[in-house]
């Protein structure tokens, strides 16, 4: 039974990896087409292609064949000087035109962002303030998709749990139950302790599966995946802020006392210059900051490396077609390897984020933490 399950999982991974790599190649091959509007065939710019893929965008580009761009237009929602403007991003014609006094800045400081145009011109008005951009971008749509996916999957599983009480889990339930138990038994229980862990379980589970699902969806190179959601600093920032807020609000007396008056530290580090309290206070903020940066950097780096391997094919292909085909074999081999590695990273980063959040909650709620801590040493 166990063997069969493993084999199924392996074949699932292999098929997925195969699809990912194949479509990555196709997707990227279309990318040089993005530059067609500037007249003639431009040289393939790997750096630009990679950045275009990992940053956010107002449309969901699926592929280009020659001059035809296939992309999903997304709603643009702008708030500027008390005025709300809502329209589809297709009005920009892939960023080539201005609409309602807005345009996507092609160059400069605000490159890729929506800016005000000069009156009647398709030019950026450097003097005007930036509109607040609440658009449903590629990342936002991807976020919505993952949210719906999470809700559908887990609420249906919850139904199964309620209906088939005391029965062995099956299907999706048996795939996800080990993860749920893993978070409970290996993350929440040891980090927070049996008395208080239950309060934090919903957050930890949501956090883990949100990051894990989005990490995996980021590895799928075509719609509805492919958005670099967990590799976006705004997303990781919000996640880290959630952890920070929960930690701060669950901090008990011992936690704050530890910050103000860290035990086991010589007094002259606290009075007259409150060096240690300052360090501790900085620590309170660096913890979520590090959470934010770690997830962002790991996922973005993964995407960059993957795209880099695929780019190699086109860089060499520009030199000579034969060379491109030759390099593609090696590139795809590496990309497969990277995809497998990224799957591991997808899990590890979700795990690390959740584990560290749990540890911070544990620290914030620990009873007379230091007495117990010092007694142990």
């Amino acid at each position, binding site marked *: 039974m166990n063997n069969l399950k493993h084999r199924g999982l392996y074949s699932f991974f292999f098929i997925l990896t195969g699809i990912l790599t194949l479509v990555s190649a196709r997707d990227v091959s279309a990318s040089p087409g993005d530059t067609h509007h500037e007249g003639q065939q431009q040289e393939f710019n790997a750096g630009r292609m990679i950045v275009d893929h990992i*940053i956010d965008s107002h449309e969901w580009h699926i592929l280009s064949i020659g001059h035809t761009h296939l992309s999903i237009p997304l709603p643009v929602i702008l708030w500027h000087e008390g005025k709300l403007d809502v329209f589809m991003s297709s009005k920009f014609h892939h960023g080539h035109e201005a609409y309602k006094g807005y345009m996507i800045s092609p160059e400069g400081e605000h490159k890729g962002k929506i800016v005000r145009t000069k009156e009647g011109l398709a030019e950026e008005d450097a003097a005007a303030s930036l509109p607040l951009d609440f658009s449903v971008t590629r990342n936002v749509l991807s*976020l919505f998709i993952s949210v719906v996916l999470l809700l559908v999957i887990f*609420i249906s599983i919850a139904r199964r749990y309620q209906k088939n009480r*005391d029965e062995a889990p099956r299907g999706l339930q048996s795939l996800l139950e080990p993860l749920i138990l893993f978070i409970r038994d290996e993350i929440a229980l040891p980090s927070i302790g049996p008395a208080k862990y239950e309060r934090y379980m*919903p957050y930890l589970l949501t956090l883990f599966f*949100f990051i894990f699902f989005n990490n995996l969806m980021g590895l799928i190179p075509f719609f509805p995946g492919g958005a670099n959601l967990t590799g976006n600093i705004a997303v990781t920032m919000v996640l880290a802020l959630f952890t920070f807020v929960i930690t701060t609000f669950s901090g008990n007396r011992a936690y704050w006392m530890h910050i103000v008056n860290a035990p086991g530290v010589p007094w002259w580090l606290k009075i007259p210059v409150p060096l240690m309290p300052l360090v501790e206070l900085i620590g309170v903020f660096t913890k979520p900051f590090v959470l934010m940066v770690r997830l962002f950097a790991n996922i973005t780096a993964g995407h960059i490396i993957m795209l880099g391997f695929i780019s190699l094919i086109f860089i060499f292909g520009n030199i000579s077609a034969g060379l491109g085909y030759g390099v593609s074999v090696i590139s795809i081999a590496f990309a497969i390897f990277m995809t497998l590695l990224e799957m591991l990273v997808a899990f590890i980063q979700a795990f690390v984020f959740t584990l560290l959040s749990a540890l911070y909650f544990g620290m914030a709620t620990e009873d007379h933490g230091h007495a117990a801590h010092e007694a142990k040493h």
Partner: protein
Amino acid sequence: MELVSPGIGLIFWMTLSFGLVLFLLRKFAWKPIMKALHEREANIDAAIHAADKAREEMEALKFSNEQLLREAKEERDALLRDARKVREAMLEDAKSRAKEEAERILESARAGIEFEKMAAMTDLQNQLAQLSIEIAEKILREELSDKHRQEAFISRLMKDIKIN
């Protein structure tokens, strides 16, 4: 540097969506799932405990059964032994009683015989005395037919009395 500058739009949507998904999953997924997992674990624990207890009970039962059997066997043996003893005792008793009875019967028979003998003897003596008296009467009648002899006899009797 768009890569490291968080956009307001995504922050807004992310906070909203994540908050919503956290709230909904907490209410409709995690609580029922955690509860069901807890219950299942509790049930499994209870089942294992019950099985352990049942096994222990079975063992205890088996042990007590064996003991019961052993005790029953012992009791049977004891009963048999007792019965044998009782039988022997009864036999012995019966034998001795029979012997006693026989002796008693013999004794009484003997006593009866003695009594009969004595009775017969007495009867014989009486008859003998009767006969003797009759003979003596006849003799006396014969002897004392004449006066002379009567006087001689009386004087002899008188002499005897005097001596006494």
